């Protein structure tokens, strides 16, 4: 799905989180929102997911105005920073949650839910952990379960907030590859937030560098490296 961010601005009371920003996200792209904390990248992601509403501006999905769509109507697969797995449910029930939450008419029968959850567990290469609880998983496993849960709703796009933030270096590398593979397999338009420039450059097709609620530069990793648009970008990517 093609996403168009059109002059989106957001303020919380007196503080401005986002100055009007515009950004086209091509269908099927893997995009990184890169910036330090307080740059507005998470706010922008949450606006896409429908968890925040912009103070002004529009969001377009495939050319249609989606600004007023509720979080449920957006059908965005959202992976939260600390994964936000339902701690009182097994991994299986976590992944099945979105399917069970559907209105009766479009809810798949139990056998179909089991089939799909099993398939997703295979996709994240953890076929045997369905009966475990989130507290019994490692950080990397939790992240993959969160990804499977987001994919279960057959989302129109995938949004990830610092998906590798809480993991150690070795697991990070592994999961980066995992995300790339899942993205390529599903073809979903994917946006992830990160403060790690190496991660953004290595993983993304398109990197959006943000600072203080503004977009500093949009470009392919190689272009941004070769021609940083501002002093901020030059400094940030050399860090």
């Amino acid at each position: 799905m093609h996403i168009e961010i059109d002059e989106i601005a957001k303020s919380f009371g007196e503080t401005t989180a986002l100055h009007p920003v515009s950004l086209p996200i091509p269908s099927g792209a893997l995009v990184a929102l890169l910036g330090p904390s307080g740059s507005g990248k998470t706010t922008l992601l949450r606006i896409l997911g429908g968890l925040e509403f912009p103070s002004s501006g529009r969001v377009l999905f495939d050319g249609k105005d989606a600004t007023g769509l509720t979080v449920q109507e957006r059908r965005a697969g959202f992976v939260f920073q600390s994964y936000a797995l339902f701690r009182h449910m097994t991994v299986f029930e976590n992944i099945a949650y979105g399917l069970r939450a559907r209105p009766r008419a479009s809810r798949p029968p139990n056998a179909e839910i089991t089939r799909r959850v099993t398939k997703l567990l295979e996709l994240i290469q953890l076929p045997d952990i369905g009966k475990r609880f989130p507290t019994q998983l490692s950080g990397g496993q939790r992240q993959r379960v969160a990804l499977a849960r987001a994919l279960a709703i057959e989302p129109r796009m995938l949004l990830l907030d610092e998906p590798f933030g809480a993991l150690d270096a070795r697991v990070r590398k592994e999961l980066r590859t995992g995300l790339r593979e899942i993205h390529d397999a599903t073809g979903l338009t994917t946006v992830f937030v990160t403060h790690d420039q190496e991660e953004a450059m290595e993983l993304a097709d398109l990197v959006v560098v943000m600072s203080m609620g503004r977009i500093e530069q949009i470009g392919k990793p190689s272009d941004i490296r070769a021609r940083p648009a501002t002093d901020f970008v030059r400094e940030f990517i050399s860090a």
Partner: protein
Amino acid sequence: MSDVTTFRAPTEEAPIVRRILIGVVVALLAVLVLAPLFVVFAEALSRGVGEAVKSLGSRDALAAIRLTLTVAAFAVPLNAIFGLAAAWAITKFDFRGKAFLITLIDLPFSVSPVVAGLCLVLLLGTNSTLGGLLVANGYPIIFALPGIVLATVFVTFPFIARELIPVMIEQGKAEEEAALTLGASGWRVFRTVTLPNIRWALLYGVLLCNARAMGEFGAVAVVSGKIRGETATMPITIEMMYNEYLSVAAFSLAAVLALLALLTLALKTLLEWRHADALAATGGH
């Protein structure tokens, strides 16, 4: 630990300090909690089990037990709903006057129950505008069941909210947001995510609230008018019996009240023991 060890962790107290601390706590509990409890039962049974049971079968005692259970049956569910609403409002939204609201929730802890009872009488008694109107239409509040329930609700209001607020703050909104992005409606999120996550805190709050509701004396004493067999709850009936030197009757009823409280605690312990895994997973009590 072996005897040759001379080092000890900085957070670890010397053995003598530990023993003194534990000793003090055990001694205090024994003198202040266990001994009185024992005396109540001993006094109730001082003239045999038969006498105690007979005194409990009296009209006044039975009426008191019935009234106390009725009051708790109204007050606890009401406070469960109020407590949930208050905890929800405080932990999930930001709004002006939030700090003031938190202070208000704590108010019943700091105001004397007797004062609370008097306020209710002034507000809803026959001599007040509102109370007069209600009495004239056949709905007396003061010296009747509604007044007793209101007084009990007031006194026990903080228990459930106070249990829920810290748990809900600690859990944050991430899981609820996750459920919303997965397509769940607000009501479904509450039912399948919020409620299961706070169920232990809620249960604990309900049990505490229930124990306190059954034992409340001061506020109820003012609003009930202490009409024997009609508006006298268990604690009030106990006091009246005691003042009339009916010590077996007073202590038998007191023993029943204590047993109800002990039952509450036993129920809590049983639930904690049976659901230890789920408890560890949700980080409850």
